C-alpha cells in the first residue's frame, strides 16, 4: 500500500471563520436597527439609506449569505478535506472563493442602502453582482468536485452528499431566478412577470432556505456532531432515506409561499401537499442528530459546543414541523403576512443556523490554534444569553402574528369588519415589537461575548496553517463486492447526477406549465402597460423597498375584499417585471390603493405618515419631495421592458418623455386642488402616479384613450372635484 503524506489547508478555514464572526455582528445589528425602527419610526434619523425598506434586505442578505454563507464555507472547507483525506483541490480557487464571496457581500452592503435592488426576496442584488455570485459559486463547485475527485477515501460520507446537493441546487436556483434584462449599470427587469415571476421567485426563495440554510448545515451536523460527541451516527439507513427524500420533496414546496394568491389552485395544492410530506424527511435529520447523542448526554452538559449543537438541532426540528403546519392552507390564511412568519424564520435563523455556526466556531478555534477554549464560562454565558434572546424574540412575534391575524379577520355580527382601520391592528403590536428588540439585543450580546472568547482563544494559541495527514492512495480499479447505496457512495459522478435529477423534477413540473399553458394566467383585456411616469414611480417603489412592508396581493377572503377591494387576479400582473406581491403586511395591502385617496393625501403621507395617519410606524420619505426625478434612463428602461415582453410600440422611447411630462402636469394640478404646491419634476410625482394606477385597470374596462398615448391607458383616476 502506497501511503501518501499531505496537508490540510487551515488558512482558508480560518479566514472564513473570522469573516463569519464579523458578519454575524454586522448582520444582526442591521436586524436590530430594523426592529427598533418598527416602534421608533424616526430611528433612521430621516436618512434614506437606512429606512426599514432598505435595511431589511441588508439584514436578510447579511445574515443568510454573509454570516451563514461564510459559516457554511468554513465548515465545508474544514470537513471536506478531512472526509476526502485530501487538501482542497486548488488553493487559488479557495482564495478566489473567499475573497470573491466577501467582496460580493461588501458590494451588497453598499448597493442595498443605495436602493439598488431587484426587490426579489433573498435575490435583491442587481445584475452585475448576480453575475459575480454565479462565477464565485462555480469556483466553489470546481473546488468541491475537484477535491472529491482527488480524494483518498473511496466512499463519500453522508455530509458530502449534502454538500453536493447544495452546490448543484444553489447554482440552478440562482441562475434561473436571476435571469433579467439590464437597463443601465445598476438596474434590471426580471424576464418573468407577475404570476410566473412569483412562482420562480418562491421556488428560489423556498429552496434557498432548503439548499443554502438547510442541506449544507445538515451536512455540517453530520460531521461536527459525531466528531464532538465521539459517538457513531445513529442510523446509516436513516441518513440515506432522509437525504434522498429531503432533496426530492423540498423543491416542490415553494408554492406554499403563495397560498391563496393569484397562483393557480393546482400549484398551490402541490406546494401544500409536498410541504406536509416534508415533515418526516426533515425530522429524519433531527432524529439522526439527537439519537447520535445517546450515551453522550453527560458530555453535552460539560461541552458548550454540544449544547449549542443540541439547541440547533432541536430548533431545526421545531422549525421543520412548523413550516409544514404553516403550509396548511387554513393555517396559512391566518399566519401569512403576519409576524408569525417572522417568528418561524427566526427559530430557523437564530436557533438552527446561528447556534450550529457558533457550535462549529467553538469547536474549530481551539483546533486551528492548538489550544483550549479561552473560557468555558463565557461560552456558557453566550449560550444562555442566546437562548434567552431567542425566547424574547420568538414568543412576542408569535403573539403579535396571531393577534394581528385574528384582528384582520374579525367581523361584527352584522358582517362588518371589526377593525376596519389597519392602523388599529398595528398599534396593538407595538409592545411586542419592543420586546422583540430586547430579545435581539440579548442574542447579539451573546454573540459579542462569543467573538471575544474566540479572539482570546486565538491569542493564547498558535495557529497551525497546515495540518499534516497520511493516507493510502485511492485504488481506482474497484472490485464489485459492494452493492446498493454503498456502491453509489463510491461513484461521486453518478451520485451527483442522481441528486441533480431529484432536484430538477419538482421545479420542472410546477414551473413549465405556468409558462406554456395559457389558462394558468387568464388574460384581462383592460390591463395595460404602465405609463413612463408610472414605470419610474414603480422603480422608486422598488428602490425604497416598499414591498418589504406592503403586499400587492389581495387574497380571496371576505376579510380582505372588505378591507382592500376586489381580490387580485392573475391577469392583472402580466406587465409586472418583477412582481411585487410581497410577503409581509407591516402596513396595509396596496394592490387597490389606486384612486382610494387624493394625490395630495399621498404627498402629505410621504412627507410624514403621521400627518395623515396618527400613530403610523412608517418612516418619513421627505427626500421624495425634494429629489429630482431621474429621467435620462427612461429610454433604456422602456427598451428593457419591451425586451422582457411589455408591448410598448416601436420607437416609443422617443415619445415617452413627453407623455411623462403630460401626466406629471396632471398630478401637479391634482395636488393644487388639494392645497399642495409641488414641482412636476420631483420623485414624489412619479410615485403618486404609480400608486394611483395600482389595481385600477380591472375597473376601467372602458377607459377613454387619447390618440398619442395609445396603447397606454389615460393616466390615473382623477379625484379632482
Amino acid at each position, binding site marked *: 500500500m502506497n501511503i501518501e503524506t499531505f496537508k490540510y489547508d487551515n488558512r482558508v478555514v480560518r479566514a472564513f471563520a473570522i469573516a463569519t464572526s464579523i458578519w454575524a455582528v454586522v448582520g444582526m445589528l442591521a436586524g436590530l436597527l430594523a426592529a427598533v425602527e418598527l416602534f421608533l419610526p424616526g430611528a433612521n434619523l430621516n436618512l434614506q439609506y437606512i429606512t426599514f425598506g432598505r435595511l431589511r434586505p441588508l439584514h436578510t442578505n447579511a445574515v443568510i449569505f454573509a454570516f451563514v454563507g461564510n459559516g457554511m464555507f468554513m465548515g465545508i472547507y474544514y470537513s471536506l478535506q478531512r472526509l476526502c483525506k485530501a487538501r482542497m483541490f486548488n488553493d487559488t480557487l479557495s482564495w478566489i472563493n473567499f475573497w470573491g464571496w466577501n467582496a460580493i457581500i461588501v458590494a451588497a452592503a453598499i448597493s442595498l442602502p443605495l436602493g439598488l435592488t431587484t426587490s426579489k426576496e433573498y435575490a435583491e442584488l442587481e445584475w452585475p453582482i448576480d453575475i459575480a455570485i454565479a462565477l464565485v459559486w462555480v469556483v466553489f463547485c470546481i473546488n468541491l468536485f475537484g477535491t472529491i475527485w482527488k480524494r483518498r477515501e473511496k466512499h463519500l460520507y453522508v455530509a458530502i452528499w449534502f454538500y453536493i446537493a447544495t452546490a448543484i441546487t444553489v447554482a440552478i436556483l440562482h441562475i434561473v431566478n436571476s435571469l433579467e434584462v439590464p437597463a443601465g449599470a445598476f438596474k434590471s427587469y426580471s424576464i418573468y412577470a407577475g404570476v410566473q415571476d412569483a412562482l420562480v421567485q418562491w421556488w428560489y426563495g423556498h429552496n434557498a432556505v432548503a439548499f443554502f440554510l438547510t442541506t449544507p448545515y445538515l451536512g455540517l451536523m453530520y460531521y461536527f456532531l459525531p*466528531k464532538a460527541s465521539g459517538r457513531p451516527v445513529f442510523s*446509516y439507513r436513516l441518513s440515506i432515506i432522509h437525504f434522498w427524500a429531503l432533496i426530492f420533496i423540498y423543491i416542490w414546496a415553494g408554492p406554499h409561499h403563495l397560498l391563496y394568491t393569484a397562483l393557480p389552485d*393546482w400549484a398551490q395544492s402541490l406546494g401544500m401537499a409536498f410541504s406536509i410530506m416534508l415533515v*418526516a424527511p426533515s425530522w429524519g435529520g433531527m432524529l439522526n442528530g439527537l439519537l447520535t447523542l445517546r450515551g453522550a448526554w453527560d458530555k453535552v452538559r460539560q461541552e458548550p459546543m454540544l449544547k449549542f449543537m443540541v439547541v440547533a438541532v432541536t430548533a431545526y426540528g421545531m422549525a421543520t414541523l412548523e413550516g409544514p403546519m404553516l403550509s396548511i392552507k387554513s393555517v396559512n390564511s391566518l399566519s401569512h403576512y403576519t409576524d408569525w412568519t417572522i417568528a418561524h424564520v427566526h427559530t430557523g435563523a437564530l436557533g438552527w443556523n446561528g447556534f450550529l455556526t457558533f457550535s462549529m466556531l467553538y469547536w474549530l478555534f481551539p483546533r486551528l490554534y492548538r489550544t483550549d477554549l479561552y473560557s468555558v464560562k463565557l461560552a456558557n454565558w453566550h449560550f444562555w444569553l442566546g437562548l434567552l434572546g431567542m425566547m424574547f424574540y420568538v414568543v412576542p412575534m408569535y403573539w403579535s402574528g396571531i393577534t394581528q391575524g385574528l384582528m384582520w379577520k374579525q367581523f361584527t355580527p352584522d358582517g362588518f369588519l371589526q377593525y376596519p382601520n389597519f*392602523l388599529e391592528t398595528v398599534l396593538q403590536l407595538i409592545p411586542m415589537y419592543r420586546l422583540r428588540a430586547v430579545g435581539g439585543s440579548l442574542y447579539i450580546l451573546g454573540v459579542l461575548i462569543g467573538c471575544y472568547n474566540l479572539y482570546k482563544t486565538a491569542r493564547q494559541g498558535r495557529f497551525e496553517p497546515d495540518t499534516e495527514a497520511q493516507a493510502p492512495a485511492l485504488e481506482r480499479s474497484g472490485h464489485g463486492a459492494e452493492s446498493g447505496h454503498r456502491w453509489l457512495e463510491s461513484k461521486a459522478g453518478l451520485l451527483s447526477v442522481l441528486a441533480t435529477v431529484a432536484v430538477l423534477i419538482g421545479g420542472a413540473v410546477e414551473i413549465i406549465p405556468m409558462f406554456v399553458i395559457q389558462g394558468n394566467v387568464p388574460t384581462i383585456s383592460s390591463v395595460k402597460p404602465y405609463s413612463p411616469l408610472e414605470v419610474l414611480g414603480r422603480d422608486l417603489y422598488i428602490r425604497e423597498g416598499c414591498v418589504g412592508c406592503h403586499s400587492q396581493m389581495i387574497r380571496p377572503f*371576505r376579510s380582505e*375584499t372588505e378591507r382592500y377591494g376586489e381580490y387580485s387576479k392573475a391577469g392583472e400582473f402580466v406587465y409586472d417585471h418583477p412582481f411585487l406581491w410581497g410577503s409581509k403586511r407591516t402596513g396595509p395591502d396596496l394592490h387597490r390603493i389606486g384612486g382610494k385617496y387624493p394625490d395630495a393625501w399621498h404627498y402629505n403621507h410621504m412627507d410624514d405618515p403621521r400627518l395623515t395617519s396618527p400613530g403610523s410606524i412608517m418612516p418619513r420619505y421627505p427626500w421624495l419631495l425634494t429629489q429630482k426625478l431621474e429621467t435620462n434612463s427612461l429610454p433604456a428602461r422602456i427598451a428593457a421592458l419591451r425586451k422582457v415582453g411589455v408591448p410598448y410600440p416601436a420607437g416609443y422611447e422617443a415619445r415617452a418623455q413627453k407623455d411623462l411630462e403630460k401626466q406629471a402636469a396632471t398630478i401637479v394640478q391634482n395636488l*393644487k386642488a388639494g392645497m399642495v404646491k409641488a414641482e412636476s419634476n420631483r420623485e414624489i410625482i412619479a410615485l403618486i402616479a404609480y400608486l394611483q394606477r395600482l389595481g385600477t385597470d380591472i375597473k376601467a374596462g372602458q377607459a377613454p384613450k387619447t390618440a398619442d398615448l395609445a396603447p397606454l391607458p389615460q393616466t390615473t383616476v382623477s379625484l379632482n372635484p
Partner: protein
Amino acid sequence: MNDPIRPKDPLLLDHEADGIQELDNNLPRWWVWLFVLCVIYAAGYLVYYHVLNMGPLSAAEYAKESREGEALKNAAQSKFEATLSGLEPSKDPIVVAQGGKTFGTYCAPCHRADGGGLVGPNLCDDYWIHGTNFSDNLKVVINGVPEKGMLTWKGVLQPKEIYSVASYIYTLRGTKPPNPKPREDQVPASTETFE
C-alpha cells in the same frame, strides 16, 4: 471512538470517515409511519381537490363566504336606512367623539382634519351643497356623490359609525378653521385660486 467500558456495538458498521462511525439502526417505526401517513394525506388531498374535484377551491369558497357576509350586512344596512328620516344628530359626547375618530380616519384625507376642506368641500361653513337636513347628510355619507368624487360609505362604515360621524360633522358647522377651502359657487372651477 470505541468506548473502552462498553463492548463494541453489534450494530456498528465496519466503515468510518475521518474517525466517524455509523450504526446500522433500523428506521424508527413511528418515523416510518409518520412519513407514510403524511404521504397518504398529501396524495388524498390532491386527489380530493384536483382529480375528483369534490372540494371547493379558493374562488368557490370565497363566493360562498361573500354571499353570506353580504346578506348580513345588507340586512343591517336596510334596517338602518329605514329609520333615517326620524334621526336627529346625537348630542351624546361619547357618540360625537367616536364620530370624530371616524372622521379623522376616513374623512380627513379629503375634508381636512378640521373639516376646512381639501379635495372635498369645506364642512364648516353654511354652504351645504347636498341639503341641510340631517337625513340628507346621512344619505350623502351612505351613498356618496360619485360624480364629484365623494365615496360611498355604505358597507364600509357600520350604521352606528355613519350615524356618529354625521353627528360629528354637524358639530363642525359654524367653526372657523384657518384657511378654509372657498365655496364652490363663488370660485370658478379653475385651480388658479391656489397660486
